[in-house]
C-alpha cells in the first residue's frame, strides 16, 4: 500500500491504461503542455505519451467533445476532460444528443468507450461558473453511466473501469478531493460499476452521500457519535448509474432512517432520485420519511458567508438531522 493523492491516483489510472492500449487518448484544454493539467491530474503524461495521445486543444469545448465522440466511433478509447464541469454546458449537444444516444440510434452497431471527466464542486469562492455539481442533469439522460468517486482509491479503480466500459461514462471529480490522500495498492485493480460501499457502520441513521459529501458525512458522523452517541452508517454508492440500491436497502433495514446528501442543487437532484428509488422498494423499513439535503436552489455565490449558507456543511447537516429525526 502507498498513500497518494486523489489526483495522482487518477493519473496512475490514465498512465496504466495508456500504456496498455494505444487507443487510449486524453483530450482537453491545457492537459499536456501549458498548465500540464489544470488540477495536475495529467502532469507529466505529455512527456511520456506525446502530443498524439495527450491532446491539447484550443478553447473549443464543442470540438473537445466531438474529438472524443469521433475517435470513439473509430474504435479508440478517448478520455475527454472539460476543465471545469460548468463548461460542459458549452458542448452539451455532444452529451445529450450524440454520445449518449449512439448505441441506441445505431441499432447497437456502435458500443463506445468514452469517458467525460468533469471536475465539479465548490472550491473556495470559485463562484457561479466554476463550482457546480451537475450530476443530476446527467443522471436524467438515458445512455450514460455515472461515476462519483469520493476518495483516491475509488478514483483510480473507477477510472480504469470507465476507460474500457463499452458505454459512455460521465466521471465526476471534485476539486476539494484532488489533494485528499488515500491508500492505493501496489497491484493493479479496477472497481466495477453498480457496487456501493459501506464507508462506516452504524445503527441509528443511514447517510447516503456522494463525492465530497462523503467527507462531510464522515465529519457529521464523528461529531454526532462524540456529542450524542448517535451511530451513523455511511453509504457511498460510487456510481449513480447504475445505482447499487440493494446496499442502501440493507442499511435502511437496519437503521430505519435515511438521509441522502449531495452538493448539487436540491431541487430535482440526485438525492430526490435516490430517495424515490429507496422509497419504492424499502419504505416498509422506514420509521421516518426520507430526508434529502443538497445545495439550496441558488447559483453558487463567491462571497464566503453566502457560499457557506448555500452548500451543505457539517454544522448545517447536523442541525437538519437533529430537527428532522428528532435526535
Amino acid at each position: 500500500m502507498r498513500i497518494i493523492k486523489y489526483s495522482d491516483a487518477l493519473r496512475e489510472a490514465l498512465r496504466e491504461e495508456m500504456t496498455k492500449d494505444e487507443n487510449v487518448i486524453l483530450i482537453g484544454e491545457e492537459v499536456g503542455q501549458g498548465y500540464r493539467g489544470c488540477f495536475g491530474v495529467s502532469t507529466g503524461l505529455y512527456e511520456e505519451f506525446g502530443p498524439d495521445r495527450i491532446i491539447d486543444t484550443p478553447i473549443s469545448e464543442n470540438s473537445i467533445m466531438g474529438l472524443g465522440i469521433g475517435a470513439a466511433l473509430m474504435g479508440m478509447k478517448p478520455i475527454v476532460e472539460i476543465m471545469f464541469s460548468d463548461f460542459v454546458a458549452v458542448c452539451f449537444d455532444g452529451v445529450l444528443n450524440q454520445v449518449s444516444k449512439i448505441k441506441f440510434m445505431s441499432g447497437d452497431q456502435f458500443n463506445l468507450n468514452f469517458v467525460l471527466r468533469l471536475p465539479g464542486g465548490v472550491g473556495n469562492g470559485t463562484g457561479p461558473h466554476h463550482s457546480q455539481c451537475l450530476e443530476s442533469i446527467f443522471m436524467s439522460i438515458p445512455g450514460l453511466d455515472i461515476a462519483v468517486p469520493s476518495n483516491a482509491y475509488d478514483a483510480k479503480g473507477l477510472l480504469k473501469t470507465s476507460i474500457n466500459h463499452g458505454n459512455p461514462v460521465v466521471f465526476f471529480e471534485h476539486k476539494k478531493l484532488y489533494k485528499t490522500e488515500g491508500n492505493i495498492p501496489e497491484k493493479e485493480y479496477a472497481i466495477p460499476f453498480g457496487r456501493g460501499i459501506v464507508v462506516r457502520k452504524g445503527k441509528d441513521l443511514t447517510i447516503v452521500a456522494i463525492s465530497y459529501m462523503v467527507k462531510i458525512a464522515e465529519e457529521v458522523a464523528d461529531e454526532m457519535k462524540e456529542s450524542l452517541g448517535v451511530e451513523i452508517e455511511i453509504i457511498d454508492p460510487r456510481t449513480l448509474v447504475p445505482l447499487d440500491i440493494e446496499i442502501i436497502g440493507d442499511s435502511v433495514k437496519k437503521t430505519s432512517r435515511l438521509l441522502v446528501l449531495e452538493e448539487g442543487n436540491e431541487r430535482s437532484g440526485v438525492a430526490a432520485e435516490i430517495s424515490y428509488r429507496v422509497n419504492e422498494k424499502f419504505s416498509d423499513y422506514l420509521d421516518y420519511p426520507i430526508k434529502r439535503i443538497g445545495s439550496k436552489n441558488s447559483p453558487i455565490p463567491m462571497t464566503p458567508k453566502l457560499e457557506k449558507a448555500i452548500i451543505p456543511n457539517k454544522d448545517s447537516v447536523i442541525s437538519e438531522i437533529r430537527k428532522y429525526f428528532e435526535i
Partner: protein
Amino acid sequence: MKISKEKLLELFEKMVLIRQFERKVYEFATTGVVRGSVHLCIGEEAAAAGTVMSMGKDDYLLPTHRGHGQGLAGGTESKRLLAEIIGRESGLCKGRVGSMHFFDKENNNLGAQGILGAQFPIALGVGKAIRNKKMRSCVLCFFGDGTSNQGTFYESLNIAALWDLPIFFVCVNNLYGMGTHYSRTSKVNISKKAELFGISTKVVDGNNIEDVYLNSLELIDYVKKNSKPALIECKTYRWMGHSAFESRPYRTKEEIARWKESDPIKNFKVRLLDNKITKEEIEERENKVNEIIAEAAEFALKSDYPEFDDSIIQ
C-alpha cells in the same frame, strides 16, 4: 481527366437510384407509411453521388439530415435504408430512428445528423483517429449552406487546419436553410469561410455530376496525400420542401421552375447520349433501378415493426 464510360453509367445509375428512392419515400410519406418527417434531396443527386462516389473504401462518411442520397451513394442498401425510414426491424438501425439518424457501420457511415452542426466536431475526432492510426483515409463531412452558420463549423475549420486533419468538408449549398435564403443569414460565401483558415476550396456546379465528381476526386486525393482538410461547395437546389410535406411560400414558382431546368439527371442523360452511350444502355440502368426500388419497397413493407424489449432501457 476523362471519366470512363462505365463510371459515367455508374454515376448515372446512382443518381437515378437516389431520385427514385426519394420518390418512393415521398409516396410513403404522403400515404402515412412514414412517421415523423423526412427531408428529401430530389434535385441534389449530383452533389451526393458525385462527392461520395469519389470516396475510397477506407474513407468515412458523416451524412446530414437530408442524407438518404449520401448514404445510398456510399453503398448503403436501399432496402435496409427504406425499412429504417419506415421503422421496421430489418432497417439499418433496427428501425429505431428513421430517416434522419441512420448509421451504417459496414459502409463506414458514422451516423447521419438530426442536429445541424453536430457533425463538424465529430469529424475532427474521426480525422484525429485516422491520423493516430496512420491510415490513408479521410472523412467526408456533409453540411448545408444554413449549417455553415453554426459556431461548430468555425471551430472545426480552425482545428482541422491547425492539426492538418484529413477532413473533406462537403457543402451542399441548396440556397435555403428551411425557408431562409442564404443571403439573409451570412455575410460571406461558404468557401470564403474556409479560405480564412487556409483551407483549399472549390466551388462547383452542384448539378453537373462530372464537375462534382472530378473535383471531388482531386480534392480527396489532396486530402489523403497531404493529410490536410479541403472543402467543396456544390451549388444546387432543393426541389421539394425542407421536409416532405412543406409547401411554404418562401420561393416563387418561377424560381423553382428555373432550377428544374438544370435537372442534374435529365441534363446528364443528354450529355451521355452525346458521349456515345446508347439509349438502351441508359434504359437498362433505369430499369435496374426501378427493380431495386420495387424490391426495396416490398422488403420494407413486409418487415415487422420491432417489438419492445428491455434491452433498450439504459
